[in-house]
């Protein structure tokens, strides 16, 4: 059963200068990392509607992080900002000097979120990791993770205790005086706009939001088996985030665990290169087909797939195998039509 269009409210929050607008511009508006130096501080909330595939709209609330704005979100605009949130992305600047204060603000935001949107998922990005010496990056990140987790737990616990003081909140109707267990769905990532880590975090963020993921995964698997592939990646056309992937048992032995975000990063950079070369706008489509055959080692191709997607196929070598895989991928396009809009797709293979 295919679902209709889904709208998701996504809050992007964190201190001013932490890098929220930068990330958003790179992922969804095809900025280069160095272009973000020109971004000014966001005033109040910058609302944008990002169409992702045919049937998901992200209502992105980029919330300017200057203190006055933050206080306003927590007071006057509290219900407006924190109701119906699907995802909160909270960004910490690892270089920030005032960690205590950052954490205090974070705790306040989490409290407001838990109060108004119990089901919201939380993604915490420990950002600008490029500024930390490579040898201590992992350790610095782990330390920050445990602090943030502890603070989150504390914040959630406080809201739990205070619950009865907020009769207006949605959960009261669940009855029997029992305070429901607020188990926050939270993931943390180390990120930087200067490397592929950005793509890893954002692919996880959108992954759970994409409608009909089960159908996509099943169809990719049947395609993969049919063409004898070792790996298939499906990218959204503008962001080049990995929407879904399939890997054969042989493909699972590939030791490069970071290859998905790496491919996003490479292809997005390639798109920029092409746009510079052709002089066409960055958001426009740039290439339609990219083939690479590494002699008797392996073959691969990246090709325009449906209106909203590109597909990457990594497969065993062999000229005949390659040609038939390309034909089969073209033939499989109709199975994935539903990715392009809220239309009902025909029954799949």
């Amino acid at each position, binding site marked *: 059963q295919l679902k209709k269009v889904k709208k998701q409210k996504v809050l992007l929050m964190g201190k001013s200068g932490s890098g929220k607008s930068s990330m958003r511009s790179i992922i969804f508006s095809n900025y280069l990392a*160095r272009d973000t130096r020109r971004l000014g501080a966001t005033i109040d909330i910058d609302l944008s509607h990002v169409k992702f595939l045919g049937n998901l709209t992200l209502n992105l609330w980029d919330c300017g992080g200057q203190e006055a704005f933050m206080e306003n979100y927590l007071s006057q605009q509290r219900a407006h900002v924190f109701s119906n949130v699907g995802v909160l992305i909270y960004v910490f600047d690892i270089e920030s000097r005032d960690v205590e204060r950052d954490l205090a603000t974070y705790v306040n935001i989490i409290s407001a979120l838990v109060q108004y949107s119990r089901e919201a998922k939380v993604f915490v990005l420990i950002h600008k990791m*490029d*500024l930390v*010496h*490579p040898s201590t990056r992992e350790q610095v990140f782990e330390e920050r993770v445990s602090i943030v987790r502890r603070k989150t737990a504390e914040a959630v616990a406080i809201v739990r205790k205070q619950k009865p003081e907020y009769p207006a909140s949605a959960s009261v109707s669940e009855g029997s005086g029992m305070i429901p267990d607020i188990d926050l769905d939270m993931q943390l990532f180390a990120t930087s706009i*200067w*490397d592929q880590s950005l793509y890893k975090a954002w692919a996880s963020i959108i992954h759970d939001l994409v409608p009909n993921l089960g159908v996509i995964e099943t169809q990719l698997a049947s395609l993969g088996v049919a063409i*004898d592939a*070792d*790996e298939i990646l499906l990218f959204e056309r503008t962001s080049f985030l990995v929407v879904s992937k399939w890997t054969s048992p*042989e493909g699972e*032995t*590939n*030791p*490069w665990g970071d*290859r998905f975000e*790496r*491919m996003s990063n*490479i292809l997005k*950079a*390639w798109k920029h*290169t*092409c746009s*510079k*070369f*052709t002089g*066409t706008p960055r958001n*426009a*489509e*740039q*290439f*339609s*087909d*990219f*083939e*690479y*055959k*590494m*002699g*008797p*080692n*392996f073959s*691969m191709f990246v090709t*325009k797939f449906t209106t909203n997607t590109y597909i990457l196929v*990594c497969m*065993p*070598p*062999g*000229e*005949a*195998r390659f040609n038939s895989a390309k034909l089969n991928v073209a033939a499989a396009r109709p199975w994935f039509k539903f990715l392009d809009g809220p239309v009902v797709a025909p029954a799949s293979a």
Partner: protein
Amino acid sequence: VSDQASVPQTKGKPRLLLMGQRRSGKSSISSVVFHKLPPSETLFLESTARIQKDSLNSFMEFQVWDFPGQIDIFDNPNFTFDIDAIFGEIGALIWVIDAQDDYLESVARLNSTILNLQRGYPHINIEVFIHKVDGLSDDYKLDIQRDVTIRIQDELSDQGIENAPVNFHLTSIYDHSIFEAFSKVIQKLIPRLGQLEAMLTNLCRTCRFEKAYLFDVNTKIYIATDNTPEDMASYEICSDYVDVIIDFTEVYGSPEWKRSDEWRARLEGPPWLQTLENQVACEFAESGMVLADAQRPIMLREVDRFLALVAIMKEGSYDKMPQINMNVDVVVKGLIEFFEITKTKTGIAAV
């Protein structure tokens, strides 16, 4: 600084010397170009305390020497340099000037270095990299280049030196300019470059290519191109193409991902009944890419372990790939022969 007395035996290997003031970017340049360090990571480079000698085994074997900025090799109270050991087998002296800093002292030191060199080693190419020009406007870049050029030429002609081989390049590690500059520097060290260029020009004519480059894959330095005018945009897309192929190769074609025997057995079994080697059309890496507007496809073909041919084709030629590939095959064979002969004749690049 006491181990520099023993200069290792480096007979026949062209040497690139990187010199300039401290923090001018020498180590960053050699790390980015020769060791693929992401430019942003150069922030963490330690200051160089002694001469770093790098041996690069590529299409031709050469050495890169990174000199600590504070050392003046011609006037050093703590140590006498064996000047002949340093400059005897030289390929080029690259002088790095930080364009974002006050460069007068650097220019003065460069002038005295040139004067010193002119006495004993007048044939040495001096390549001035006016560096860190990212973030500077085009006008400002040219102003700096003009100013530096005049300061050097004036000083030299005051000393009666007219035709010193000094060249200027505007560079940054954050874009292609540093690779372009190195390409120019290296090309001057290639014996019989003209012959290579003629081969590429010929290829462009027979295959109706717009532009062709021969790349050293590891460094993205292009060692030759055809005789059509230089074109930065073409160089950039071809160089990025090499990058993409390297990344694809690392992720899916590296020795770290060794396919199992069962995998091979299945692929060589029915209905194929052929070894994988026999199932492929070309034993070397080859690639093609079509832009969304279907104009000007790009192709890449591996020449040997170190070299790849990258060409921008003309509209509509993607359908003629089989014929094109045959022509490319012929040229690739010629290139391989060229480098075999060059190796045995000059003794460089014992790969």
